[in-house]
């Protein structure tokens, strides 16, 4: 019995000693960090991209003009639930100075009202890069010109940006383009020239312009006196010559200012009067934007932009359009004749993102909010200065899980009947976006 007790005590002693020794060893142990850089060696092939799942719930504004245009043939839905799946993939192959890239985008929408699957080739081009100062591209490519965050008036050779989602990838145009760059010492540090050739025909870039022909664009970039400056031009058979100028510079380490101006000539615009008469006219216009970006000591970023859309509609023109749609809708209810409603839906410039002339944009983003790493709450306000209707979009983004991005975003649209945001089809929209990157 005594021997057993002694043995038990000895075992306990050994156990405690082991725990103590392990504790001492553990307390003195350095954390070990390893890094095998060879695992990241360059490969000839690469495949990158993301899968996206985006369910949403929208409360619709049934008496709005754009609701009537969009849902007139449905059973007057009050709410709209949707599930979207998307895939964006970048497949590239590199050998020496040669590179090929293909970027397809697939999107599917599932909802009680509609099921739709669409696919586009966003980019697909071949490039030659014989030196760091010169590159040549041929194929479908997205060019992003301009310094604005929500809008880019000087984006002369790209599809319109959605100010609600300015960071989304967009489809490019078929083109031949080159980049030539030269660095200097002194006030002028960098000079780059980007010439672009864009053909337009019924089968190539048909949505670039309604007139077929060969078009030429160019961007001259200067880093002069610590200011980014772009001089832009678009000319050719499909439109009269258009000019653009943009700039961006840091006022201080925490303040940035940017601006853009585009002078557009002979733009074609279709309008409709309250009696339903369509008019087609050509006119000149100027679009400009002025913006500020500020980073506070608490790591809050503020982006403020004012946008003047010289090709936008004034209040009377918008009122005519709303009146036309409402009369067409009444006629449809009475006779089931939907011709005018379908014609109204074709007038895309009325139902676009920013159809009127003056807008203000404010976005506030907080980094690592409430001490939570990779947590980015934000709020975005976009207001139409002509009628003071607005869209308010709070959002919560979390990027803490490797290769996942989670975002919950709501849109609240305020405005009365006859006002820009009051005539949008949604009153409220809640959207969850889950992205997995590969």
């Amino acid at each position, binding site marked *: 019995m005594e021997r057993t007790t002694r043995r038990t005590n000895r075992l306990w002693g050994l156990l405690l000693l082991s725990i103590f020794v392990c504790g001492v060893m553990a307390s003195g142990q350095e954390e070990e*960090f*390893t*890094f*095998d*850089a060879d695992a*990241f060696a*360059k490969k000839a092939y690469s495949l*990158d991209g*993301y899968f996206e799942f985006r369910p949403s719930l929208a409360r619709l504004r049934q008496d709005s003009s754009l609701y009537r245009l969009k849902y007139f043939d449905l059973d007057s839905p009050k709410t709209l639930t949707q599930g979207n799946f998307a895939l*964006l993939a*970048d497949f590239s192959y*590199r050998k020496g100075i040669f*590179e090929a890239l293909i970027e397809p985008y697939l999107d599917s929408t599932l909802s009680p009202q509609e099921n739709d699957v669409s696919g586009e080739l966003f980019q697909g081009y071949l490039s030659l*890069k014989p*030196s*760091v*100062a010169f*590159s040549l591209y041929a194929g479908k490519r*997205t060019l*992003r*010109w*301009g*310094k604005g965050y929500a809008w880019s008036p000087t984006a002369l050779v790209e599809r319109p940006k959605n100010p609600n989602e*300015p*960071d*989304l*990838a967009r489809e490019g145009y078929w083109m031949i383009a080159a980049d030539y*760059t*030269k*660095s200097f010492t002194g006030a002028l540090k*960098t000079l*780059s020239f*980007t010439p672009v050739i864009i053909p337009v025909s019924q089968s190539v870039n048909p949505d670039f312009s309604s007139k077929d022909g060969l078009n030429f664009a160019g961007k001259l*970039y200067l*880093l002069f006196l*610590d200011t*980014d400056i772009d001089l832009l031009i678009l000319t050719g058979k499909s439109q009269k010559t258009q000019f653009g100028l943009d700039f*961006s*510079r*840091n006022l*201080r*380490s*925490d303040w*940035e200012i*940017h601006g853009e101006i585009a002078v557009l000539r002979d733009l074609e615009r279709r309008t409709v009067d309250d009696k339903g008469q369509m008019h087609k006219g050509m006119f000149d216009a100027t679009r400009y934007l002025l913006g500020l*970006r500020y*980073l506070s000591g608490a*790591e809050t*970023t503020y982006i403020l932009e004012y946008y003047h859309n010289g090709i936008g509609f004034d209040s009377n023109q918008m009122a005519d359009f709303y009146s036309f749609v409402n009369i067409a809708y009444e006629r449809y209810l009475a006779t089931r004749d939907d011709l005018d409603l379908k014609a109204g839906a074709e007038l895309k410039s009325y139902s676009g993102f920013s159809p009127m002339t003056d807008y203000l944009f404010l976005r506030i983003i907080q*980094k*690592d909010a409430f*001490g939570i*790493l*990779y947590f980015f709450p934000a709020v975005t306000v976009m207001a139409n200065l002509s009628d003071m209707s607005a869209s308010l979009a709070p959002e919560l983004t979390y*990027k*803490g899980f*490797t*290769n*996942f991005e989670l975002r919950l975003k709501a849109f609240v649209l305020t405005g009365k009947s006859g006002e820009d945001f009051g005539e949008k089809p949604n009153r409220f929209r809640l959207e969850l976006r889950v992205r997995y*990157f590969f």
Partner: protein
Amino acid sequence: MRTQNSAVFRTALVAAIVLVSASLISAQADQDVDGNAILAKMDRNLSPESFEAYRKLINIEPNGRSKEFVLYTVKKGADKVAALFLSPASEKGRSTLRLDENMWLYIPNVAKPIRITSLQSVVGGVFNNADILRLDYAVEYAVEQKEDTGEEYILHCKARTRVVAYDRLTIRVEKTRLLPIQIDCLTAAGMLIKTIVFKEVKDFGKGIIRPSVIETVSPLYKGYKSVMIFANIKARELRDEVFTLTFLPQLDTLRK
């Protein structure tokens, strides 16, 4: 006679004050030159003037969870540095460029470089852009005071311009190898923003012997830690055109 003595005394006193002041000014000037020379030598010991390197950033949270980022970095001369994210997939292709006091961020989907500030964080966590796109310390800071503790120099540095992320640095430098041991980053008022500790001195070849691990903690992020591990640091000659907005989306083509 008394008046004459008084005049001599006054003259001697003025001469003594002038001599002492001159010697003090001269000593201060020597110390400044010496401190700045130490800082410049420390910079060269950390990396060649123009180089390429791979870095892994690890953000460690108080609960032990961590997230890793891998970057490819190139630097040329005193004012040009660029970095490209290779991993994780959610950040791949994201690149940043610093040309003197100008900084830009390029995000592949956005496909347009935007101007950023040195305090902004590209990845979240304790690291900010200035840590990722750091120029030589001697380019950004001037030594105001140098202490010699026997085994270490302690350099009290002040920012040369207002665009840097930290107004003051206190750098502990190992005397024998002139390598940094620890850097305290402070505001103008002397408030500690972060502490950077240099560890695990490693021979990277071709005369580059330097700490391979840098740990950063911040009282603003209590319990959080960021670690930067260096690999494959190599001297490399690069053209100035590499450090331009036009080339920023093509940084990956530099990798061999």
